[in-house]
């Protein structure tokens, strides 16, 4: 494990070279009771190490939960708070925890943090990992306690080199201070954490593929049931939660479910705050911690609108695997259910903005290339269907489309629907394609210029 040799905060060492997730709210705007995820973060972007974290009320939630000695109460609070999974699926974390097998004849399992943040247009977990490692560790200890896990893994995207350094040093700090290891804070509860960096595959963000990768196997998803809570890593009960989800736990444990529910006010039924973000040709891209249910329009306002003369054409509410929404949808509160009703998904909650000048065909080609490349190769529609869609999109992009190509894309997208494929990867690839074909079909039709079945002057030999 590598550690910085001097006392300089790691985050500052190469901040000028590397991209960093930018939180666009100043310390003055962020408060413990309204910004549970980010109030400890510093304006200078330096890491909040253990001393500072403790100084800012750190590990109080762990102390409270372990002192109370009732793991089931933690689950009950989480359920009541209805913390919905921030990885994109929006499944109730408390409900997930309540389904983890526990008992005298059941081995203690694992609490796994899914930090394999690779959704295109998403950079929220990175902020928390790089600048505030102890909040995550706190959340993981609470998750482990509630789920009777004996060991934790942070499955980290390998490109997050800085996060790996920060996390490893923070884990050491926590262990030295007695917050990790045997008999945490004198409670009798044992738990420790290791950082596992992935090998750079998007599919490792799928929780069961993550488990296979963690075990050293191929990153193919697993069929459910059995769920990870029944038979997860190495066949033991395991809980996989997203970074942001776990970072919500300390606040919930400390302040209670009502407080958490109250954070979003009247905007939505969902509780808590959300790390929202905007990327694309806007004036001021970045991240904001806002009450969940904030509208797209408000987000776009905070990003100070479209850059230059760009006009908004469409937007993805939360990553490449969510369906395109139109300008008219900006007024909707961005919560899991509302966005779901519009045929899209909230996903990671980081909106990607598409300007009018952008060809939807090229954009879809680019996105489908990503999804085809990141297919694990397990199930047929995803493995062989997505590359075909890429080649069709390429043909359309080059004006070499044939009559029938768009219908073929329709069928390919439909055949990659939920339950038809093994996991949610291909449906995630199909959702934006279907939306693009629906809302911007004319752009695709412009690529159909060749008669059907005739030899083409350009051979389509595109290989990924």
């Amino acid at each position, binding site marked *: 494990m590598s550690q910085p040799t001097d006392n300089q905060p790691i985050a500052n060492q190469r901040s000028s070279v590397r991209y960093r997730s930018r939180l666009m709210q100043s310390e003055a705007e962020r408060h413990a009771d309204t910004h549970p995820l980010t109030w400890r973060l510093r304006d200078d972007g330096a890491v909040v190490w253990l001393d500072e974290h403790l100084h800012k009320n750190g590990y109080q939630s762990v102390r409270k939960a372990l002192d109370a000695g009732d793991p089931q109460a933690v689950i009950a609070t989480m359920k009541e708070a209805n913390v919905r999974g921030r990885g994109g699926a929006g499944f109730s974390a408390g409900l997930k925890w309540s389904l983890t097998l526990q008992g005298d004849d059941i081995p203690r399992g694992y609490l796994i943090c899914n930090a394999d943040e690779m959704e295109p247009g998403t950079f929220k977990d990175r902020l928390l990992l790089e600048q505030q490692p102890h909040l995550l560790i706190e959340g993981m200890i609470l998750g482990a306690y509630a789920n009777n896990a004996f060991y934790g893994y942070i499955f980290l995207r390998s490109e997050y080199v800085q996060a790996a350094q920060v996390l490893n040093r923070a884990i050491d700090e926590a262990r030295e201070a007695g917050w990790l290891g045997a008999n945490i804070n004198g409670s009798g509860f044992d738990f420790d954490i290791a950082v596992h960096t992935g090998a750079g595959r998007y599919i490792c963000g799928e929780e069961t593929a993550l488990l296979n990768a963690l075990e050293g196997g191929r990153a193919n998803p697993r069929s459910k049931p059995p769920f990870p809570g029944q038979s997860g890593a190495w066949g033991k009960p395991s809980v996989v939660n997203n970074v942001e989800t776990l970072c919500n736990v300390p606040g919930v444990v400390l302040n209670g479910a009502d407080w958490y529910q109250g954070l979003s006010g009247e905007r939505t039924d969902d509780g808590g705050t959300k790390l929202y973000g905007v990327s694309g040709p806007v004036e001021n891209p970045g991240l904001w911690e806002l009450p969940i249910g904030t509208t797209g329009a408000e987000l776009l306002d905070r990003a100070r609108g479209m850059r230059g003369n760009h006009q908004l054409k469409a937007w993805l509410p939360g990553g490449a695997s969510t369906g395109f929404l139109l300008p008219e949808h900006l007024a909707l509160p961005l919560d899991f259910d509302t966005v779901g009703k519009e045929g899209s998904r909230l996903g990671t909650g980081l909106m990607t903005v598409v300007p009018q000048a952008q060809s939807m065909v090229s954009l879809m080609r680019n996105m489908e290339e990503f999804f*085809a490349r990141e297919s694990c190769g397990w199930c047929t529609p995803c493995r062989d269907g997505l590359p075909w869609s890429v080649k069709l999109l390429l043909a359309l992009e080059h004006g070499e489309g044939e009559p029938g190509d768009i219908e073929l894309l329709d069928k390919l997208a439909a055949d990659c629907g939920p339950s*038809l494929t093994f996991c949610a990867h291909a449906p995630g690839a199909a959702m934006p394609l279907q939306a693009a074909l629906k809302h911007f079909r004319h752009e695709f039709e412009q690529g159909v210029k060749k008669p059907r079945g005739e030899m083409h002057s350009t051979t389509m030999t595109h290989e990924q």
Partner: protein
Amino acid sequence: MAIIHVDGQAYEVNGADNLLQACLSLGLDIPYFCWHPAMGSVGACRQCAVRQYKDADDDQGMLVMSCMTPAKDQTRIDIEDEEARTFRASVVEWLMINHPHDCPVCEEGGHCHLQDMTVMTGHDRRRYRFSKRTRRNQNLGPFIGHEMNRCITCYRCVRFYNDYAGGTDLGAFGSKDNVYFGRYEEGTLESPFAGNLTEVCPTGVFTDKSHAAHYTRKWDLQFAPSICHQCAMGCNISPGERGGSLRRIENRYHGDVNGYFLCDRGRFGYGYVNRSDRPKVPEWRAQLDQTPTHLEVDAALDHITDALRHARRVIGIGSPRASLESNHQLRELVGDKHFSTGIEAQEQACLERMNHLQRTAGLPTPTPREIERHDAILILGEDPVQSAGRLGLNLRQAALARRETMGEKLDVPTWDAEALKTLGQDSYHPLHIAWPTTTELDSVAIRHSLAPEEIARLGFAVAHIIDPSAPAVDRLDTATRETAQQIADDLMAAERPLVVSGGTLTSEAILEAAGNIAKALSMHAKQAGLVLIRREANSTGLALMGGQPLDWALDELAQGNADALVVLENDLYQRLPAKQVDAALARADIRIVLDHQRTPTTDKASILLPAASFAETSGTLVNLEGRAQRFFQVFEPAYLRPEARLHASWHWLHSLAVSLRGEPPKAIHLDQATQACAEAYSSLAGMAQAAPGADHRIAGLPLAREPHRYSGRTAMRAHLNVNEPRPPQDPDTPFAHSMEGYSGFDRPRQQVPFAWAPGWNSPQAWNKFTDEVGGHLRGGDPGVRLIQPAPGHQGHYHQPVQSAEGTNALRALILPRLFGGEETSSLAAPIQQRTEQPSVILSADDAQRLALKTGDRVNIGEGTTLPVYVQPDWPTGWAGLPAGLVAGVLQGATLTLSAGDKP
């Protein structure tokens, strides 16, 4: 049982199945690729989609994968749903994107599951117009051809090879639409079950290289139900012939014995049938140094008759690799008092001991299928993968089944393969192996490296712990006592403990120890079992028939008590030291040898009669369960080789007997030969029922040996004669040497030459012949058990052996070898290529005493030098030698090693 509704029709199915299994078992067709009846479901290919409705009111439903959906009571599905059909067509279309469509030049064509499924889904128009990806292939050794361009990425190969068979050198590499199935580098596939890839692969990625070398389409092959002759397991096989030579061996499904899989010795060891140096006509010579004179059949018979008439006494030497019928005809010819089994005395004593134990030790012998349900196993002094090939796969499944037990608690169905694998991880049912060196099963077993006597003592100690009234073992060291305790605890904690032993180490003490454990377990009323491994295809049968051991026969000759000898399909030099055999043969004036191969023994024959091999004749064998099974003639050798005079040994010997009695020539048919044998020995009485007789008909028809698309019949003999004779008539069996006859699947039958059903050309067609997929043949699994446990505990405990006195002598410990350790398969070129470099295994102590180290070459006698391998936990006092290498060196023989030539 559950009721499910399929396309509006109600059916009763096994509720523990998934919907794909259930529908296939009902005879309904759903296309599939990644699912395999022996390997369960993984949901990868998405080919088996059907529409499922939540309940009777649901008219929407959703598409589900039938392989991943339980066949719960009141499940409603539509297979013929339009959306499901088009989705299934889409799946094949995707699979075909990179498939080269090279069926005309593909070895799989004509028995290809991918072809069958493509036709079934109706995909017949290609819409993909872009470039295809191409791949490099690997040389995977002498058995398996590799053509990765054809791969449809169903993952069956790695699932079979790694998960089912325990291989480690085949993997899935890469991801997305570029997953490569192969080795990390070129080289021979290491698993002894790799050949099953040729049947597990749904298309032509993994194909049979031995078949490719003389390729014929499945529909142009002639088949018969046959039994593998390469060990005592008795796997059912479908050998395919064309033009007078065997072209390939495929698995023939047997619900109790071999299921869907064979070992590679059985699959690729058939080449001896096609050898050009086989004796084809009778040969006679007055002196050994003379060039043999070829004789016609009548002349040969006259000659032998004349010679035997003048002999003082004729000794007949039978063979455990020949049929019961042939052995019996030999015994009839020479008389009971002059008949030897042809088996070395110590081995025969072990065989008799095993038959006895199977009757009296108090435990039944499970079928190989049932072995997979045993939940704790002790293997005493055997290396099953090397000595009984296919059996090793069964034992491995038994160990793996622990995960099914674990799955029950979480309601994970037994077919949910990946989930069970995740859950089970490295948990196995206890499998203890007492054996001095590494075995293929070690990855799922606890092995105790012991010398033969110590293996026996361990066994006696286990029996004593289980039942204190079994005799205790003196002076047992602490380590062995603890091992015995651990084994006994594991066996006693199990519902269905199993004891496996056998004759490989030719140690009666080990068998007696296994018998003591069996008896002790039977006292506890467990559902325990006893499996005893014999060496050769008909070892069990010969021991049931009885006769004097080979040593006796050679003594009789050497002492001048007999002057004539008839040897049946047996190379005596494989069994006893050459000096002993030479001395006996030198005293025999008349040496009649019947064989289908040339051996050192046939070289000493005064008259050599060319015997038909297993593919050219029929007969009965008894496998290691005690199951009598009939193998049938695949082809009539005289049809395409009119000059050949190959006949079944039982035919030759019967004709000789008739001639010797001075009776007019009289033919004997198989059923008579079988019946005669069954009547002569009470222990073999059941063998006549092992298979239907020659008069068996289905719908008035004989059974076709050839698929109905068999081509070129009229041209087959054109190079010999443009007149086309009628196909050979077969008076011995119910099979026709033509495509005329019954070859369907709808009428239950036991004897199936080749599996075919309309739309099902691949080995997956077996599902049409079984009562449920992976179950039993609807006509019953072939064969009859001849050995049954006698009621009540008649057996008694045996006294333990003493520990061997320490001497400096080095004794031979012959280690069985799947490749190279068996006489006839070792004559097949692919097996010879696959045979590993042999070595002598020594303990570190012995190596030090003899000043040898790994890599040194030593002379082991008979002019053979081998490299030394020093194995740390190998027992001192023993030198491990590979079987089949130094003919005539017996288990336990004292060896003198001398420094050999430097390599």
